[in-house]
């Protein structure tokens, strides 16, 4: 069975600038994936490529084995997409927005959409233009959900929301996932927003994927090692070193361990997810600094 979302060497260039480059990843069905990276890392580009809004400059992207651009008629009904700015027709009423969803989607679940609006106390007769940001986000999410997609792509869904609306919104996503087994990809530049709801993680920085995997496995395998500087070489032969810093004769290594880490010369610390993500993003920042200096 093909993955919900799969990309190989995927890249997109705007002018001479690569917004996304060499992106290879696979998002299994039924997972909730956090797509994390700083602004301009290529998150939006990746999601737009996946839903066929953007054409790849290099490599390929598949949703359920389908080319979202060339096989749009088959792929589109299976993918729900919520753009960052939650675009809606300002002059439409909420009811007309639902009607829009019904007219343009064969799998539309009108009852579910109306139930959601009622549960959120959203008046159907109100114009979209006069809704609050949080309400608009909910209408946009309802559109994406009532389409009954198998893959739901949410681009920075909570960035524009206040903390309360953020919590409500993510709760809605969690409930939807629990109800029907859909695959979800949420992007954010702040991991804390998504950590509660996700089981998989993709770190994107500088237009490239830095880390792809299951969150549990990521947390389990990353360790902070402190030990003698002259033995750092040995560690890097065994484990993948993400980040290294040296003080005098002592070295601190962040490693993605292959198997168990045990060595009497090294003190081993466990890390939480946020520290790991920051390490990867920091590494990227360092690399960029080096690139500027060299």
């Amino acid at each position: 069975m093909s993955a919900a979302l799969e990309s190989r060497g995927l890249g997109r260039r705007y002018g001479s600038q690569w917004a996304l480059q060499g992106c290879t990843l696979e998002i299994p069905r039924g997972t909730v994936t956090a797509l994390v990276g700083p602004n301009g890392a290529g998150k939006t580009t990746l999601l737009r490529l996946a839903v066929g809004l953007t054409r790849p400059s290099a490599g390929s992207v598949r949703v359920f084995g389908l080319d979202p651009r060339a096989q749009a008629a088959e792929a589109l009904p299976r993918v729900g997409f919520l753009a960052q700015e939650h675009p809606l027709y300002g002059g439409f009423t909420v009811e007309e927005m639902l009607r829009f969803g019904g007219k343009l989607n064969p799998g539309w679940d009108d009852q579910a959409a109306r139930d959601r609006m009622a549960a959120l106390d959203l008046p159907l007769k109100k114009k979209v233009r006069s809704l609050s940001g949080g309400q608009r986000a909910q209408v946009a999410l309802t559109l994406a959900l009532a389409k009954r997609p198998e893959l739901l792509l949410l681009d920075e869904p909570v960035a524009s929301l206040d903390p309360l609306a953020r919590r409500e919104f993510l709760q809605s996503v969690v409930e939807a996932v629990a109800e029907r087994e859909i695959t979800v990809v949420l992007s954010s530049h702040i991991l804390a927003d998504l950590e509660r709801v996700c089981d998989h993680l993709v770190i994107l920085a500088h237009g490239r994927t830095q880390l792809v995997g299951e969150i549990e496995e990521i947390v389990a395998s990353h360790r902070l090692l402190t030990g003698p500087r002259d033995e750092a070489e040995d560690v890097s032969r065994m484990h993948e070193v993400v980040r290294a810093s040296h003080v005098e004769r002592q070295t601190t290594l962040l490693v993605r361990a292959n198997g168990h880490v045990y060595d009497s010369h090294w003190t081993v610390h466990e890390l939480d997810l946020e520290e790991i993500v920051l390490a990867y993003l920091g590494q990227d920042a360092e690399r960029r600094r080096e690139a500027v200096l060299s």
Partner: protein
Amino acid sequence: MIWLSWRQQRTEAVLSAAMVVLLAALFIPAGIHLASYYDHHGVARCISGKTLACGETLAAFGDRAGILRSVVPWLTLLPGLIGVALAAPIILDLEGGTYRLAWTQSVTRGRWIATRLGLSIFTALAAAGLLAVLFTWYRRPLDHVFGRFDGTSFDLEGTVSLGYVLFALGLGLAIGVLWRRTAPAVIASFLAYVACRLFVDGWLRQRFVTPLSATWKGNAPGPNLNTDWVLSSGISDRAGHLFAGNFQILQACGRVGARGTKALNGQCLARHGAGYNHAVWQPASRFWEFQGIETALFAGVGLLLIAFAAWRVLASD
């Protein structure tokens, strides 16, 4: 998808329809009045008549059209307004990024653009077509007398309005997909529409087909050009070179007639080498040929512009 397209251009379509209704309310009673005046005052008999009384009858008939007759020339801007207005909701979609919302539903962007353009074209043609029918009907009695080939009636009657409206729609869409800002794109395309129309009206149209011309002696009866499109006419020499209108010579040769009218002394003019009349015109019989050429010209360019806009939208990103 048709529902969405309709919903998004509803305002523009309703405004166009309201305009058609308003104009119908003005021109239908006026048209009935004109037709009945035409029938009851012996206007038809005077069309080829040359008597003074007939001249007065025709002038009075022309006056009957009243103020509407001076309003009519402006109405040739309407196909431009309608076409540009119907382009606006599509540009608005591109400007606001809401097209992405439609493109991420289950409908392919090919179907989206086809339906939206299809409905815009249909609405534009329907509105312009109704206006053309209305004015052609209204002007029928006037056309019998004054012809339908002169500037304003040619622009309003027949099929050209269909070409104009497609052209305006195409301009709006083409400028809109490039600029993606609704207000300036709409204004710019309307100005471009007016400029192109002025160029065709004032310069190009008379060159579609070589015009006819004739030269005849000053006191001989010339051809009846009442319903033709006269491009130029006046006093000329024998070879048909129009007399440059030397005011002093014309004044010298003028003669106050018995009834106070001024007539030109033929012999005096002949002494100055200008005893002939010359006219250049497009005969009324070419009306439909010219309508066909102009409709094809505007509709063709309009459809090309629409196709360009569709291609730009489909290939975007």
